[in-house]
């Protein structure tokens, strides 16, 4: 490393601008000329490059232990699990639970809309955050927060995305789901409702279901029934029949 020649602040700044491709066309041709004709200068530039790169590499190196600390144990299984299969399993389990519950408490327990909600509600498990689908890093980053039940952080990351894509069904669905999971059903309703009005089908069925549940929680049985009726998720039929009693 060449230290005998002290570099001024301006010289350093100029070399950095070259390294970062920020020189104007004219500055660049002068710079490259100098590189060609002045080996000392060339070494100096190489040294600065090494310096900048060394800072980055050491900084990254020091972060790796933090990355390492929270590697999820089930990382491989988790990624391969398609969403629908998980839902199916959940549905079956919930349906079984409902049948047992109904059988044992049929005469003893008259339920309120809120208690029906509490009994049936489990948050949407979220989307797998594989890198292959990472067209949108912020979206999947927020999904990680969502899965860790840090719903408010997830919402705060999704909201700015929604400004640029107000009619994106995925965004609306998960912002709504996050609010609902965070116990803010009133905030959740408009987002979920929006998803039920879109023509995209991916989240529509789930949206009707969760919208119905959200209405249950705010004691609006009529709208709850209406939305649950639109959902083909098995569990909605159970809830509907429970509400009829």
């Amino acid at each position, binding site marked *: *490393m060449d*230290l005998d020649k*002290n*570099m001024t*602040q301006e010289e*350093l*700044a100029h070399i950095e601008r070259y390294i970062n491709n920020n020189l104007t066309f004219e500055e660049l041709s002068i710079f490259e000329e100098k590189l060609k004709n002045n080996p000392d200068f060339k070494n100096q530039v190489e*040294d600065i490059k*090494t*310096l*900048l*790169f*060394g*800072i*980055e*590499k*050491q*900084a*990254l*190196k*020091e*972060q*790796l232990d933090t*990355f*390492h600390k*929270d*590697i*999820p144990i089930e*990382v*491989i299984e988790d*990624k391969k699990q398609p969403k629908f299969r998980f839902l199916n399993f959940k549905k079956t389990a919930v349906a079984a639970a409902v049948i047992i519950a109904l059988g044992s408490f049929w005469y003893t327990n008259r339920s309120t809309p809120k208690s029906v909600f509490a009994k049936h509600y489990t948050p949407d498990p979220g989307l797998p*955050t*594989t*890198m*292959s689908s*990472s*067209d949108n*890093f912020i979206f*999947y*980053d927020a999904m990680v927060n969502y899965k860790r039940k840090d719903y408010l952080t997830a919402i705060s990351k999704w909201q700015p995305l929604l400004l640029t894509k107000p009619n994106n069904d995925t965004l609306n669905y998960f912002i709504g789901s996050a609010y609902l999971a965070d116990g803010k059903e009133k905030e959740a309703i408009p987002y979920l409702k929006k998803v039920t009005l879109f023509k995209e089908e991916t989240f529509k069925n789930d949206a009707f279901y969760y919208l119905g549940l959200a209405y249950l929680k705010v004691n609006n049985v009529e709208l709850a029934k209406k939305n649950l009726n639109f959902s083909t998720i098995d569990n909605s039929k159970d809830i509907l029949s429970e509400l009829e009693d």
Partner: protein
Amino acid sequence: MRNLKIIHSPNRAINQLIEAIKINDTHVLKELYQNNYRKIEILVLKNSGTIDHAKDIYQDAFLAVWQNIKQNKFQPQNETALNGYLYTIAKNKWMDFLRSKEYKKTVVTSKLNNFSIKDTHLDLKDDDILKENRLQNVMQAFKDLGLPCRSLLMKFYFEKKSMNTIAEELQLDAASTRNKKYRCMQKLRKLALKEH
């Protein structure tokens, strides 16, 4: 035209990924790190290593992959190629370790036949070795630098924050921030020279 469109979309995903790696997007780096670790752990544990070995080897390999991407020495066509590359480098590093003097006394060589040896990207020329040494010196120097300079230079060069953002964070004006950065760089150069 139709063909172009089909090719275009996966390309965009990998290009975005590479760009994110190049600007040190912590979330992306973390995900890449975490998604690939278990495979290496299994490999090392199955081949006479410990969990600590696995972690060390993997971190080494991860930094090497990051460096080769930053310096355009490796340009994956898709994410699978990137993950495979990381795996291969870690595997080769583990194999090198098993072959090393440190380990050789205790191991039967026939065990090593499972490994293939090729890794063209890691073949270093003399010039490269020199450069790599300099880089190591700088890294050590940066580690030894005082905390205020470390955090300032990290904001600039690792997190790639703008001058204005950093000045605001430090509650300084842009000129003093620039000057501070300059002095930190001079310190780092001096330290790196001592390492030599």
